[in-house]
């Protein structure tokens, strides 16, 4: 027992003699700063985010992840393309409401008016990404079937709104 006592006393005294508390704090501090900066300094491929903005295609100009995209000319809500879905599909775990409202948008690529359905995706809480409000073909609330202020999840199993898609149904003729 005495041997163990002496061993520990010696080792702690040795540590106390050879190290300083200030130095330890300094080291710890710099380690924390370096640790926080490490993910930024590591050579990670960061082009994926830049590529998430889809390149404009001929006849379909614009970025589907931006409120400025022509198909979103009457959208009011969160873009499903920013929420884990795409322009035309709901994010996983949500259900598309079949009942929706339908408007028109002009495609600057060919100057034609397209029929666009703004189906809501429902069943998960608000996605809260890419909030857009555009009202180019929307009508006031007294014409509810052409209004985008309504929660169009009203025909889905869950009425909780997650995000909105923009589906081309045809060209106006």
């Amino acid at each position: 027992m005495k041997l163990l006592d002496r061993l520990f006393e010696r080792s702690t005294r040795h540590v106390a003699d050879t190290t300083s508390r200030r130095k330890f704090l300094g080291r710890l501090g710099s380690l924390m700063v370096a640790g926080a900066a490490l993910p930024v300094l590591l050579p990670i491929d960061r082009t994926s985010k830049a590529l998430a903005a889809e390149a404009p295609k001929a006849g379909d100009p614009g970025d589907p992840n931006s409120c400025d995209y022509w198909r979103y000319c009457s959208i009011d809500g969160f873009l499903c393309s920013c929420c884990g879905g795409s322009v035309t599909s709901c994010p996983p775990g949500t259900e598309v409401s079949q009942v929706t409202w339908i408007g028109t948008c002009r495609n600057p690529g060919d100057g034609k008016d397209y029929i666009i359905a703004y189906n809501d995706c429902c069943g998960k809480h608000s996605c809260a990404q890419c909030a857009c409000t555009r009202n180019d073909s929307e009508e006031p609330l007294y014409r509810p079937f052409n209004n985008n202020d309504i929660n169009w999840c009203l025909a889905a199993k869950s009425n909780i709104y997650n995000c909105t898609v923009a589906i081309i149904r045809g060209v106006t003729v």
Partner: protein
Amino acid sequence: MRKLIIGLVCAMVAPLAIARAIPNPDQRPAPGNEEPQKPIAQAHYSTPVNYQLQCAGCHLDDGEGSKANDTPRMKGFVGNFLKVEGGREFLVRVPGMSQSALSNAQLADLLNWLLKTDGIAGGSTPEHYRPYTEEEVATTRKVSLLNLPDVRADLIKKMVEQGIEISDGMD
């Protein structure tokens, strides 16, 4: 004391920061859509396009409707309204028709298109069907339907009395 002030400032700023996530009300029209859209009554779209823009959102492409939000099925059924007294006027006065953005002529065309035997009404349209005219729609549309549920229930009752099968998807 200083901590309390900082805490209060944070609590006051937080709602503003969240409010910033609400869409910007000054947003400009989408590129290519700067010119205001023509009202549908002046746009001269075809009747199927008018159906898509004014009806199909709720009644769906084939007229199936959606029971979940009280949109009746028109498919294979809507023509039955012409077989009972008051039904012809009812079809013009229902909110979706009378309050739509369509002109009287467009509405008459839409009704005749719906009631075609190879259209959404299917075989439910009576044999001696007299197409709607712009004038008829104009005079009928002006009279508002004050009690939609009761008027409709009454028409359905008359259909039942005639032995017509009720397949409007509402039961």
